[in-house]
Structure formats: C-alpha cells, structure tokens
C-alpha cells in the first residue's frame, strides 16, 4: 500500500542484498537458531547452575575433551549407527514384502489390514522390558525393537499407496488387455511409490526411536550407560555433547532417506516438500 505514496519520478531503490536476506526464510531460520544458541550461551555462562546447564561452547569443548578421546564411547556410537542401519534394513525388507502381500488384493487387504492397524495401536514401549528379557542386553534387542517400530508405518503406507489407485487407471489397463501381474507391475506399483517413501521416512523416524529407547533402557552398556553416568554425576557438558552426536546421527539418517526419495521419485509424483500436517 505504501508504494502508492511514492512519487512517480522516484524509482524505489532495488533492495540491498542484506534486505533480501532479511526476507529469505532460510537465512531467517539460520538466524533464529543462532539466536537461540547465543541466548543459551549467555544464560549458561551467567545464570545457570553448572550442574544442570552448560553453554554451547563448553558442550563443543566437551565433545573434543571427553567424548572423542574415549574409544568406548565412540564404539558405543558406532554400535548405535550399525543397529539403526540393521533395524532399518529389516524394516524396509519386511515392510515392503508384507505390504505388497497385503495390498495385492482387495480381499487380503480387508482381511489383514485391520490386524496391522491393531498391532500398530499397541504402545510398543510397554514391550521394551520383554524384548530386552528375550534378546538380552546386546545389539540384538535394540535391532529387534527398532525393527518392530519401523516395520509398521512402511507396511501401512505400501498398502495405502496400492489402495488409492484410481479406478479409471485400472479400467484402462484392463481394457488394454493387461494381465493381473502387468497391472500390478505397471499401474499399481508406480502409483504406490510416493506413499512408499512417506512410509520409508516415517519408518526411519520410528526405527531411530525404537533403537534409542532400547539403548537408553539398557543402562549397563552402550549409550545408555554413558548417559546415565553423565547425568548421575551432574556433568551436563559431555551429556549434551553425546546427545548432540546422537541427534546428528538421527538427522543424517533422516536426510539419507530424504535424498533417496528425491532421487528416486520422479517429478510430479513427489509429495509436496512443505509437509503441512502430521498424519499417521
């Protein structure tokens, strides 16, 4: 509206690079996060109780002095990465195969999909002590728990993707003489790809959750042991640094799946990048 007030012989100057950056969401986001970090730094240095809070600079410092030089912690982190990878690989394999089997026909879908939904509604964390009791304190329990979290969203999204094929496309395939297998291969599967990737991303998030829950529950070894030691000795800097390492691992795993999605989903089939609401 204020543009109207500018007299016609005065051309408004092109916005400077700085003014442009001010309107760019990406830079504003970076600035926002930097601002939060700066506030934490000030608060941590001036006001916080050093037994509970640590300024970001000391956390980074703690990573180099207390995390990186300790081979046991690095080994625990490495185990964590390997467990996530193994659990996710199993989730994808079983999730896709079971999802395809259930989604292949209307009958199997209406018979087995409610069972999957029922299993998915179980708060799996109540089974965590049982899983550890069964599989022991080692990596197997963590892989199993990550797998049981990750597999369900993949199954559900594969089934959902195969279900939502337009009737028109199916009829077109049939009328052109496609067999059942050809219809699945050329119509249903390509249609299910975007939904599959939604499932793969959700599956990754939940696999991470499962593995980390199990890691924290088993406090006699691995990551859970070190977090407990740091928390109980009121030594927040290395605790935050270790948590930061895990967060970076989680972000990298998520990014890996997102990159695969962008690479493997051609053009229009890609779901909108600004995901607006959370659904199952």
């Amino acid at each position, binding site marked *: 509206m204020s543009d109207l007030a500018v007299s016609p012989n005065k051309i408004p100057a092109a916005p400077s690079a700085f003014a442009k950056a001010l*309107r760019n*969401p990406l830079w*504003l*986001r970076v600035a*926002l*996060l930097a601002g939060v970090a700066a506030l934490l730094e000030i608060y941590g240095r001036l006001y916080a109780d050093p037994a*509970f809070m640590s300024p970001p600079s000391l956390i980074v410092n703690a990573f180099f002095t207390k995390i990186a030089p300790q081979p046991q912690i690095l080994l625990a982190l490495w185990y964590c990465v390997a467990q996530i990878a193994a659990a996710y690989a199993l989730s994808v394999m079983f999730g896709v195969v079971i999802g395809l089997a259930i989604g292949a026909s*209307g*009958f199997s*879908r*209406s*018979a*087995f999909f*409610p*069972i999957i939904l*029922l299993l998915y*509604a*179980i*708060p*799996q*964390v*109540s*089974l*965590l*002590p*049982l899983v*550890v*009791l*069964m599989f022991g304190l080692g990596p197997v329990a963590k892989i199993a728990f990550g797998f049981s979290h990750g597999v369900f969203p993949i199954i559900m999204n594969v089934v959902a993707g195969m279900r939502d094929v337009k009737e028109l496309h199916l009829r077109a395939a049939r009328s052109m003489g496609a067999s059942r297998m050809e219809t699945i291969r050329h119509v249903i599967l390509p249609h299910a790809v975007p939904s599959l990737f939604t499932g793969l*991303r959700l599956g990754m*998030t939940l696999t*991470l*959750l499962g593995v*980390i*829950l199990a890691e*924290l*529950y088993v*406090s006699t070894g691995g990551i859970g042991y070190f*977090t*407990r030691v*740091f*928390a109980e000795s*009121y030594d*927040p800097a290395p*605790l*935050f640094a270790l*948590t930061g390492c*895990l*967060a970076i691992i*989680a*972000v990298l795993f*998520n990014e890996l799946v997102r990159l695969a999605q962008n690479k493997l989903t051609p053009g229009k089939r890609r779901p909108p990048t*600004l*995901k*607006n*609401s*959370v*659904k*199952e």
Partner: protein
Amino acid sequence: MERPSLATRSVQIAFLAVVAGAWFFATETASVSALFLPKPASVYAALQRLVQTASFWSAVLVTLTTILKAFAIAIVAGVLVGYAVTRSKLATQVIEPVISGLFTVPITLFFPMFILFFGIGTGSKVAYGATYAFFPIALNTIAAFATMEERYLRAARSMGASQLETFRHVLLPGALPVLITGMRIGFFICFASVLGGETISSVAGIGRNIAHAAELMESARMYAWIVFVIATSVTLNLLVYAFENHIRSR
C-alpha cells in the same frame, strides 16, 4: 475402507485363533521357556491378583495424572505457539520447517536431560511427554490456520465481521478437524512417551512396574501389566476414534 465381509472376518478370527493357539500349545508343551512366555492361565491369574492390590491402582493413578498434566501443557503450548506462528506468513515459512525438522529427531534422545533437569520423579515424565506431544499439536495447528482459504477470510471481513467473530465463525470451525487430529496424535504420543519415560527411569507408574517385573523375572506379572496397557490403549483408540467421528459429523 471396505465393508468387512464374512470371509474377511473369518480370516481375522482365524488369525487371532492361531496366535492364541500357538501361545497355548507353546506353553503347554514347554517348547518355550516360561520366563519368556508364561501360560495364558498364569497371566490371567497374575492379572486378577494385580488388580486387587492397592499398589496397582496407585501406579495407574500416577501414570494417568502424569499423562493428563503433560497433555494439558502440550495442548496449551502447542495451540498457542502454532496460532501465533500463523499470524505472519513469514513466521510460518521460517518456523514451520524448524518444528517439523525437530520432530523427525527422536525426542527420546534428550530424555537423560529431562532426568537431569526435573529429577527422577514424575516431573521429568510430565516435561518429556509434554515436549513430545507439543510437536504434532503445534504442527497441526499451524497447518490448520495457515492453509485457511483467503477468500473465506475476505468474505467474513467484507461482511463486517470483527476479529473475534472471524475467529469464532470462520477460523475455528475451519481449523477444528485438523486441530483435533493433531490432538489425537499428540495424546497417543504423550501416552507412549510417558510410559517410555517411566520404563527407562523412574520411581513409580505403570512403565516402572513393567520394568521392575522384568528385572525380577516375574514374567506372569509383567505380561499381566502388558495386557492391561494394551487393553487400555485399544479401548482409548476406539473411544477417541468414535469421538473424532462425532465431532466431524456435526
């Protein structure tokens, strides 16, 4: 969803029967250690004993109040933050990806910090559950208010609706379904994360009792607790599902 036919129903019943039968036979023939899988009868007996103890109900009460406190905090914070963010397009563009990005990182990572800040009692579980449930509620609030069609708002304005009237008659009814979905997801995340927090480290509550039974290797009691949790969760799911349908159909 297709209407369940007799054939699909019988497949489902057969599936459940096979699972139950497998449980029964595996324990009767002792091919699985009773430590991992106790007999159905002993689980039932343990559950019967459990519900008669006072400690059972106090544990349930602890968990229930923790969940409700966490959920209340998450609703207030999530809706306020979400609504505030959508008041500006730029703020939505800047902040929405931050919140949705954080949500893909398991908040469980930060659980030891909650223990550090709020102690091992219920406070840390309230904070942890509230933090976890905050994200879906805030994200869905943002989605609900940011995707509101501009023309409805313009129509309301042009008909002389005040800010409050616009909110009451246009924004809120339009946003409600997505808001409710966010709250449902938030509630079950809250439920699971409070249980998880109690399982990992706490002094009271349902999760603590499951972990404790596992530590003592009293599998029948552990299974009794698990059965209770699963039954509660399934019942809650059905109730919330019915409630949500009721809201939507109005």
